[in-house]
């Protein structure tokens, strides 16, 4: 391509990054929010009570079973989710019978009030789950198409990471180099630092992301080597799972789940229950699966105790072994999802995710910064491609965070009884994003940047306020009740808003300075001093 390998890779890195940079930005940002999806859902269902309790798992299980017996008759499979540090509510879930013309019914979870055992009515919302699912299940597109688009983008991301390492001569020294206020060089340093600081994370998250749909993407290879039966057998070897227990359509009384739980406790020697699955409920075939917490990346998803719910004998208690490749594959899943992470590790995940997002953003900005001097000298104004990139940069890097804030606004402000509320929360988000993508087309780039940064600051700083006006879970209440989930939300929104306000301020102050120091620049005509030339000045010089 170019004279030498490094130059070729530099070119390749630039264009690979640019071509899907905006989708990657979307995937990284919504995916990063996914590390707090349970917390986000709780914030978006403010009707849920904040609970501090000292009930035993047995008492909670009994509450759940009583509710399910009453409300989920005729449903084959029940799920019970016990309260965790992240989600203090007891929840039950089941899949409703499919509606006409559909293959699968809707899965529905219900939050239970642990003191009364009754359902907690809360507003309809997509919650954190809908938000984080967008990063691989692109909202409006069909499942299949989004998996392929996401895979394509992830593959280019992998290429960008690898080529990024290749083109780096001094990966260590560059880490300690920061030449701010030098335009192009400044952005290059930022991009380098953000990339190097979390390089293992960037690689891990991209590669593991690809592994999620490995068998979809590399279907040609498996199709060449296995027939349908062999393929199914292979999948079973790679991901050993219990086969669904079908009901015999013969009613039988189940034992109390809380007494069956004793069996699991005996095996585990510890009280670390995460969830319960009941198969063939109230049937002669009824079985219960007690599932343990995910503790680290070597966690085996089959780490459960299976008990016959009628006779209370243990059916299975040692998890099935994975193959080595299966362990590695599974370990990458765990690393990607970070389900095992405690509060500190979760925040680190969140921050590294944001670093990844910022790395993509800085790369995109770098592309325009590098071409700016040449583009602004053109007689007919900048090229269409250059303007498009700049517009997409503004509309995505600042526009998407605003759109995500609008998702939260929609949750608080749309009428609770509204029909199709869940859909409209997401629609509000994407409509705002579309508007913010179009807006920069009608404004000069510098103004569009500043205005959108100001808007972002405004919406994020106002979010705690809206929360206080629409719910009783404002900062004073949440802090005094030590409801850290809600308090952290308000404080994070405020911090993010302040960061945007600071960027807007910085952006404003950095711009005119360069015009003032015009004389100095003439004397010292180096490349990086030339990078922040202003449009009006150049046109004067040219004309």
């Amino acid at each position, binding site marked *: *391509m170019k004279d030498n*390998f490094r130059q*070729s*890779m530099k*070119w*390749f890195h630039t264009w690979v990054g640019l071509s899907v940079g905006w989708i990657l930005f979307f995937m990284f940002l919504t995916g990063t929010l996914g590390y707090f999806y349970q917390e986000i859902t709780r914030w978006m269902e403010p009707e849920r009570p904040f609970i501090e309790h000292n009930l035993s798992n047995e008492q909670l299980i009994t509450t759940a079973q009583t509710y399910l017996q009453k409300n989920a008759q005729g449903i084959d499979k029940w799920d019970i989710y016990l309260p965790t540090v992240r989600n203090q509510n007891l929840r039950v879930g089941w899949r409703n019978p499919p509606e006409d013309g559909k293959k699968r019914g809707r899965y529905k979870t219900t939050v239970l009030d642990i003191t009364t055992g009754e359902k907690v009515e809360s507003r309809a919302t997509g919650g954190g789950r809908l938000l984080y699912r967008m990063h691989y299940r692109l909202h409006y597109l069909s499942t299949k198409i989004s998996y392929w688009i996401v895979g394509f983008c992830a*593959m280019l991301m*992998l*290429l960008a990471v*690898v*080529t990024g390492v*290749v083109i780096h001569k001094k990966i260590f020294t560059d880490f300690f180099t920061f030449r701010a206020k030098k335009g192009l060089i400044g952005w290059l340093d930022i991009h380098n630092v953000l990339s190097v600081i979390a390089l293992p994370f960037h690689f891990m998250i991209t*590669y593991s992301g*690809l*592994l999620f749909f*490995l*068998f979809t993407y*590399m279907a*040609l*290879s*498996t199709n*060449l*080597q*296995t027939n349908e039966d062999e393929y199914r*057998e*292979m999948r079973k*070897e*790679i991901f050993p799972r219990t086969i669904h227990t079908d009901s015999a359509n013969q009613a039988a009384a189940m034992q109390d789940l809380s007494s069956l739980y004793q069996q699991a406790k005996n095996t585990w020697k510890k009280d670390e229950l995460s969830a319960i699955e009941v198969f063939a409920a109230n049937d002669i075939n009824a079985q219960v699966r007690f599932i343990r917490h995910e503790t680290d990346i070597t966690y085996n998803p089959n780490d459960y105790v299976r008990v016959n719910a009628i006779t209370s004998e243990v059916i299975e208690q040692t998890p099935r072994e994975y*193959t*080595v*490749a*299966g362990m*590695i*594959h599974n370990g990458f899943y765990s690393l990607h999802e970070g389900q095992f992470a405690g509060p500190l590790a979760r925040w680190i995940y969140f921050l590294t995710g944001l670093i990844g997002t910022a790395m993509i953003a800085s790369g995109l900005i770098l592309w325009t910064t590098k071409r700016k001097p040449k583009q602004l000298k053109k007689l007919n104004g900048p*090229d*269409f*491609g250059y303007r498009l990139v700049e517009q997409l940069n503004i509309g995505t890097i600042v526009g998407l965070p605003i759109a995500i804030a609008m998702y939260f606004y929609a949750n608080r402000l749309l009428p609770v009884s509204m029909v199709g509320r869940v859909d409209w929360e997401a629609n509000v988000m994407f409509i705002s994003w579309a508007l913010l993508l179009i807006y920069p087309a009608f404004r000069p780039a510098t103004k569009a940047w500043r205005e959108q940064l100001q808007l972002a600051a405004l919406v994020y700083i106002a979010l705690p306020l809206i929360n206080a006006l629409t719910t009783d879970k404002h900062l004073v209440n949440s802090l005094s009740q030590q409801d850290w989930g809600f308090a952290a939300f308000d404080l994070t929104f405020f911090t993010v808003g302040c960061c945007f306000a600071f960027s807007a301020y910085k952006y404003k102050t950095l711009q005119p300075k360069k015009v003032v120091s015009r004389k100095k620049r003439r004397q010292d005509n180096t490349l990086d001093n030339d990078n922040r030339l202003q449009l009006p000045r150049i046109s004067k010089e040219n004309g």
Partner: protein
Amino acid sequence: MECLVSYFINFFNEPSPRWAIFSRVLAATFGGYALATSSALFISQLLSSSAGRYQAIHIGLLLSFLVYACAAMWVFSASNATKAWIGLIKWNLAFLFGTWLLMQFSGASH
């Protein structure tokens, strides 16, 4: 709209180097995918006796993304597009031939 159309006309204006780049993009995307697949076949044949057939296939798949990435990088570092295509075809044939050879040794039907 007009500027958009003229932009794309200019973009693919012959004899511009953009056709060569387009050719490389195709080579990296489809040739790279073919190479990822053929390398996966080779690796799974290589390991099937030691790791078991299904695990060997799995390992081949796990590594295929890395092969894909290397192939794409190589396509864009070759001195011209034709060389990139020829190189890809050579490697593909090499992997397929290797797979065939291993199959002769192991006597597998697949």
